[in-house]
């Protein structure tokens, strides 16, 4: 076996050229020898799980598409808007044919003739690479009216977004693709039944699609040998933060731990600054609960990470070392969610704003313990009430950072010292804010 299933350009330079990538053998096999049901079944058996974050089995998703309402659409989610995620970009830039082939197979499997890749707006150069690959595929007869000389039609298009995190959410993506405001839709109905232009639509992440050719080429059984039983296959881990060698690393699911990923010789090679320790890990960009160095030995597959109280998500692992102020970090993430809230539903629109306001107060040293508590309350108040998962995600950095680093929050409260040593500190604590205020007022005019 090659070293890579997905990042094959690392083995084979220039694989973005069709001449190097070779024929679309998996697609050919699918359209010439297999029925759509057989393709869906093969993917189902392989156990391939969606790589966008939720980890829903791809084959199962494809089988939800009703057969009686045509046309169907396939949409590839290449919005890659989660902070710290940069795997789809590498795939599309350096191994685009594998993505295209996978998407084409998905289109054949669900009976779609139109495939849309929704790329984030910043991916202009990536789109150029993808377009070049698409042109080659069309020229070779792998896409277009008669794929491989059959009556199968697959047309593939690229669409660049306009810069909204929410458009990575599948229903908002569809809205945006239709030319409307990027705001999530109500679910149910799910996109597989009512999707793009109200037609049945399959939406999968770019990386998910890139897995598909391998499954058809080598068979579902071969694919299942990779990874664990419930999380088969390989996954690209986007490692960033305070590590020596950040980047994309492909590994079998469940075969490495956070520790391997951060410290392994073939991976992150340890902390950026010698002598500093891992303080916190954001395992799936901004949206997953934060974990600490206690989770270092958790294996990286969907189940094990979930058991550790967080989510694997898109596997964008952001590492923070012990020099980081966690209140500041969580506030930063909250700022991101406030900025990206689409405004459609009340809890997210107002709640993220309120949480950011609380963080600003805490960071400016204007907050009391009650304010810190209020921050937690507001986060709790958002949970379970939002229209889409984004609003729910916005609370996880707040609550998880508080859970692990409560002391840091409380130390920033103006009345913190009142609590810790009972009597002696109270007089001092009462004096401090006044002192700080006078200092402030003096400082302003002079600077």
């Amino acid at each position, binding site marked *: 076996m090659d070293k890579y299933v997905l990042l094959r350009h690392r083995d084979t330079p220039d694989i973005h050229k069709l001449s190097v990538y070779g024929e679309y053998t998996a697609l050919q096999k699918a359209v010439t020898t297999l029925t759509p049901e057989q393709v869906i079944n093969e993917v189902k058996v392989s156990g391939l799980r969606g790589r966008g974050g939720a980890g829903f089995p791809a084959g199962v998703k494809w089988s939800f598409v009703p057969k009686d309402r045509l046309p169907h659409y396939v949409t590839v989610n290449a919005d890659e808007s989660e902070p710290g995620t940069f795997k789809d970009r590498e795939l599309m830039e350096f191994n685009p044919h594998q993505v295209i082939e996978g998407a084409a197979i998905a289109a054949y499997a669900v009976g779609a003739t139109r495939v849309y890749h929704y790329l984030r707006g910043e991916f202009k150069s990536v789109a150029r690479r993808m377009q070049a690959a698409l042109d080659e595929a069309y020229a070779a007869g792998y896409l277009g009216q008669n794929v491989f000389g059959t009556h199968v039609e697959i047309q593939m298009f690229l669409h660049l977004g306009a810069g909204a995190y929410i458009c990575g959410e599948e229903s908002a993506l569809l809205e945006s693709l239709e030319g409307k405001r990027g705001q999530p839709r109500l679910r149910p109905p799910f996109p597989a039944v009512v999707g793009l232009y109200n037609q049945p639509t399959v939406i999968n992440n770019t990386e998910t699609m890139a897995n598909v050719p391998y499954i058809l080429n080598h068979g579902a059984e071969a694919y299942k040998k990779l990874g664990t039983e419930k999380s088969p296959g390989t996954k690209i881990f986007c490692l960033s933060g305070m590590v020596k060698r950040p980047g994309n690393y492909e590994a079998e699911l469940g075969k490495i731990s956070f520790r391997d990923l951060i410290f392994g010789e073939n991976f992150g090679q340890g902390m950026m600054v010698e002598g500093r320790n891992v303080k916190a890990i954001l395992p799936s960009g901004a949206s997953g609960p934060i974990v600490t160095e206690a989770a270092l030995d958790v294996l990286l597959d969907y189940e094990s990470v979930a058991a550790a109280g967080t989510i694997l998500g898109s596997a964008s692992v952001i590492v923070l070392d012990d020099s980081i102020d966690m209140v500041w970090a969580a506030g930063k993430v909250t700022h991101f969610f406030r900025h990206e809230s689409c*405004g459609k*539903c009340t809890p997210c629109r107002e709640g993220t704003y309120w949480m950011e*306001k609380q963080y600003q107060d805490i960071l400016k040293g204007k907050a009391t313990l009650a304010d810190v508590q209020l921050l937690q309350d507001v986060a709790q108040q958002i949970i379970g009430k939002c*229209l889409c998962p984004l609003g729910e995600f916005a609370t996880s950095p707040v609550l998880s950072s508080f859970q692990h680093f409560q002391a840091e929050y409380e130390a920033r409260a103006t009345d913190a010292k009142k609590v810790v040593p009972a009597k002696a500190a109270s007089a001092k604590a009462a004096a401090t804010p006044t002192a700080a205020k006078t200092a402030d007022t003096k400082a302003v005019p002079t600077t």
Partner: protein
Amino acid sequence: MADLINLFIDDVAVSVPKGTLIVDAAKRADIDIPVFCYHPKLKPVGMCRMCLVQVGRVKLDRGTGQPVLDANGSPEIAYGPKLETSCTTPVEPGMRVITNTDLVKRAQKDVLEFLLTSHPLDCPICDKGGECPLQNLTLTYGPGVTRFDYADKQHLDKHYPLGELIFLDKERCIQCARCIRFQDEIADDHVLGFYERGRKMQIETMSTPGFDSKFSGNTTDICPVGALTTRDFRFRARPWEITNVPSICPHCPVGCNISLGTRRSAKGGGEWEILRVMPRQNEAVNEIWICDKGRFGHHYARSQARLQKPLIKKEGRLVEATWEEAFSLIADRFRAANGKAAGWLGDRVSNEDAWLFGKLFREGFNSAQLVNRPHVAGLDLVARYGVGVGTNLGNLGQGDVVFIVAGDVEETAPVHMLRLKAAVERGAKLIVANARETKMDRYAAISIQYQPGMDTQTVYSLLASVSNQQSAISSQVAKFAPSDNKIKAAGQLIAEAQNLIVMLGDERPYPVMVQGQYTDAGRALAQACANLVVATGHIGKANNGLLPLWPHNNTQGVYDMLSAQGAEALSGEVKALYLVGTDPIGEGQNLPPTDFVVVQELFLTPTAQQADVVLPALAWAERDGTFTNAERRVQRYYKALPPTGQAKADWEIFRLIAEKFGLKWSFFSAEGVMHEIAAQVAAYAGLDYVCLAETKEEWPPVGTSSDLYFGGTAYDNRGGVGAQTKSLFEINGRSELKWIEPPPPSGQSIEPRRLNRPGTLIDQSAIYEVRLRAAELVKIEA
């Protein structure tokens, strides 16, 4: 209903049709679930998250698909891990919904606290205060206190004009998108949208000129906060100071039910004024909508230009006189005319006025020369084959066909457009035939564009393609057998229709007077439409028959009243002429040669200036009466304002003149006149002011009785829903096909009907001037 679903809401057993949303099902069981973004007339979006409830569903065995039973043998209920929005979740059999637990109450408090973090809480100066869903629901379900620092509130533009009529207070907006959704889903004018995102998200108009829609005012009614206000009403009064008087819109033949919000105002010099016009719920007529003309076109009732006293022409000048002088003069001159008198009655006056006008001519002036709207043809045909009793455009759906010919529903009867659009969405099919494109073409299954003047021929082509049965006119119709596939397809639709309504417009070359006779192209068209419904048997039933697009609110009623008294066209010499509520000279026509002219009016119109006697009449809002709409629904309106000057109600003026002729009429109220109408006009038999004031339960409920959806004080229908009169066919069962040869196209240009065409009454609404000017600028090519 076939598909009823049984479920429990707070342990109350509820049975509702399949597809009902939980929030509506709860309403049926008198359980309130608070909502903001949800509105029963709009598609659910689930944005505000106020309606969260606990939902338990019957647990199904994965293998068998059968319910899992517990120890007692009843189905096990599985509750979802999260609260669900009741406004987006349809009911399921056996579902258990819980709306009153601490969990739900807590969620309601939480969401309200969030909503109020960006709300300015300027209730004391807000127009909505007192009938505001946000205010009401906060008091009922809210937390009472907030932990959000008031100083952290954002400050935005509070006086942002979306258009010349509607203002937006950006701070008050709670982003429920009701206004945007109304414009998109109901009015189909996509002129509003959101701009920016997150907490900065705000309503913005996407059209030039701003908020360019004939229905813009409705957004202020359905806005659940005081964010949208009309230029007319903003900062004028508090809702609880207003007296809402039930009324009927005096502009178009839809006959929208409205409430006149009246109060004494400082701006009006301490006098009673109409401060706002709002829709009054009548699901059979206008649901809960009115157009902007109806909303803003009331100012003529309190115009400074209103006639205050009778005027008599002396030495070429009109000078003020007493009623007695005026009556004596009129009596002398009409007596002298000795039967050579004629009356010309506008079609805006009430049925009671029209009846007594006819009676006065019959009994006092000894003449039957009475004219109403000479260029409207087919009034008699509508009286015979008009839509049957029980007609409700809101019931049209699958299998029903509406055929619109030579008319622009949007410009003539705007609220009909909203209802027809909704009918099309429910599955009804629309066929539109006109010489030009209209907004109705958007919803048409088949659009037919004919050469101007070829309207009648088109109707006969259609009829020829529907049936080739032998009939009195089949040989003549056969000549028009269509070659056009579109018309054939339309014929096919009509042939298969369960119900057929033919909407008859008057966008055709105007009749011209030739040798004292109108050449009446409209007559031929009306007869053709009548032939169509008669030949296909679509008469005498609910949702079948003719539905005319008359020019004014009571065109049909005035005809009914005059024709029942044997009115005839102007024929012989006219020595004295009496005009009521009509301005022929202002419309560019001539009066017949005569010695004496009486004009009874609200304003000193060009015709009134030529008169020998001018009598001041009361405006519709200053008196009561009834109008008959295009569906022949008789609807009652009530007195809302004290009279202007010495003006009197038209019917009363006629009664007083009759006294001069020695006639002892015992009418002391409009109600009394209606008694005589009911006794003498077959179609109006059995009507009286009591039965016209009867109301019925309206669904969905939006009035004060349930402030769940709106909380508006004006929606409640306390004035009656009116009664539809029978068509003559329903009374005597007689129908006939009659042939009128379609006139060849005259080559005359067609003046399209315009809702916002300037006129004596609408010109008095200064705030509406922009619309009138805009309408003048746009030239529609026919």
